[in-house]
């Protein structure tokens, strides 16, 4: 990795920097290869494919079902609020799993109560968010 411990000598840092730029060369190489490969594939198919325009070739899906109606579709704005509410629980879970794994360790160094209280504080804050949403009638589907 490019990062090193704090004070680095000047010569060393040039080395670090060279590595840093080298990483970008890899990225650049990937990008160039990406363009070349896609370009080559497109050119190749253009060059060797037979052409027979008209007929079925003009429909939107050559071998699928014809689309019916408009491309735009309305979805209810409430879905977005449910997504937000889901986030409360998602965030809760993300923090709870590592916390649960480390709880025994915290207990072994005498910080078990501290860890428990801190997590309870976190849960109460998230829970308040849920209460707020319920009180504002977000969960009612009308």
């Amino acid at each position, binding site marked *: 990795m490019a*990062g090193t411990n*704090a*004070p*680095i000598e000047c010569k060393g*840092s040039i080395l*670090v920097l060279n590595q840093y730029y080298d990483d970008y060369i890899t990225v650049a190489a990937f990008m160039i290869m990406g363009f070349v490969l896609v370009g080559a594939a497109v050119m190749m198919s253009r060059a060797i494919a037979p052409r027979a325009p008209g007929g079925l070739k003009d429909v939107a899906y050559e071998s699928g079902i014809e689309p019916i109606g408009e491309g735009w579709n309305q979805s209810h704005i409430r879905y977005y609020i449910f997504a937000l509410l889901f986030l409360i629980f998602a965030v809760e879970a993300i923090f709870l799993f590592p916390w649960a794994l480390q709880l025994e360790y915290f207990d072994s160094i005498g910080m078990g109560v501290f860890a428990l209280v801190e997590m309870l504080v976190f849960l109460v804050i998230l829970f308040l968010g849920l209460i707020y949403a319920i009180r504002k009638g977000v969960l009612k589907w009308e």
Partner: protein
Amino acid sequence: MFPLDYHALLPEIILAVTVLVTLVVDLTTRKKYLVALTAMVGLFAAFVPVLTLAFCDSLEFCAAAGVDRVLFGGSYVVDGYALVFKGLFIFAAFIALLLSIGYLEADRYYEGEYYFLLIASALGAVVMASSRDFVSMIVALELVSGPAFLLAGWRKGDPRSNEAALKFFITGIIALSLLLFGVSLLYGLTGTIQFDQIAVASMAVADLPLFTLAVIFVLLGFGFKVSAVPFHFWTPDTYEGAPKPVTAWIAVGSKAAGFVGLLTVAYLAFPGVTEVWGPVMWVLALLSMTVGNIVAIKQTNVIRLLGYSSIAQAGFMLAPFGAAAASGADSLSQVFAATVTYLVIFVVMNLGAFAVVIIIGSRVGSYEFEDWAGLNRYAPGLAIMLAVFFMSLAGIPPLAGWFAKFAVFQATIGVGNWWGYSIAIAAALNAVIAFVYYAKVLKPAFFDPVPKGVDVEALEAAEIPAPIGFALALTAFGVIVLGVFPGVAANLGQYTAQVVAALGG
């Protein structure tokens, strides 16, 4: 058992609890003034530990208790510098709250969540003052900005308010991405995000072009937040469109938070490489002062005028940064102190200016200053207050503004090189230009006759709502005290500069 220094964290804890309690109070009652009251009590309560922490420093038994106020492995530090700004931010939020109370009732939009968001934004500013690494600083910065985006769009039905919020949001996000990009480069170069370690590690990589790029990205990210030219385009539209008390908070609280971030990053993370960022800041300072002032002359709307005036003031606060290029460790703490002094005075006088403008604007029903003609006939008290704050902004003694400018001149000239001299000359010229537009607002209010068709008796009879009147009194008191006893602000500046001086020694 509990390994944290809770005393040091008490202001933040109290504010965080206040945020939650305002939400609960809002849910349980229809009397919205109770929510405002809760928020106010919370701000008061948060101010108490700031005081106890400040005086704890000088007390024997308290310091001897072995309380090291460096928390979370150096990422969060509660020192004199942090405490001065925590106090200042709580004060600013308190004034913004007082301005909001009457305004929101008259506006008939939602109230409860408003106070919740305002206190959340204040909490971000308070956290900002203590942040000593990039992660906590960016979290703090976003906690200041996030609620402010929402508050700017508070008047849902008003397209201008929507425009204000959207512009503010988009530029805020651009600033954040610039900042994050710079931070990622810095992390790659130095291997750390903590400021004191970056200060050491950056010496080795100072000559690399990539490092210059990283520093400039980080500082430009803050340039948006403090609305320095050429990143100021959002400022006038956002100020004009947002509800006026929110404008006061964005223009003062949020901006001061941006400046605190800039100060911390520039002087604590990059103190050894002033030759990299000094010239950039010099250019930003010059452009902000000049463009802000010249455009302000053409404004007819007082809020827009205050917007451009605040851009110009940002230029003044950036001037000491510009002078820091190629200066020694000693003068580094002097230029730091000058910016802090200006910032303290700026907060008090700009909040006062907004308070008086909001009162007059809502009474007359217009924020065009031509419509304020003859103000001193029907509201002499308000006219005098208007004069007090605008003369202070212009820098007329004995009002606080003069000392702010004096501190900047003193520090920039004191550096003793051409970076300092040149920016001091530019600042002096700009101070003269600024006088023109501040006087332009006062002229109709004092010397023009009352326009025909104005119901003078109704305007005379109108009363100032108590909360906003209190805010006006507080800030007016502050402006006069800071102007007559400039030592107060100067001492605060020197007190905070210890954090930089300690670095040099």
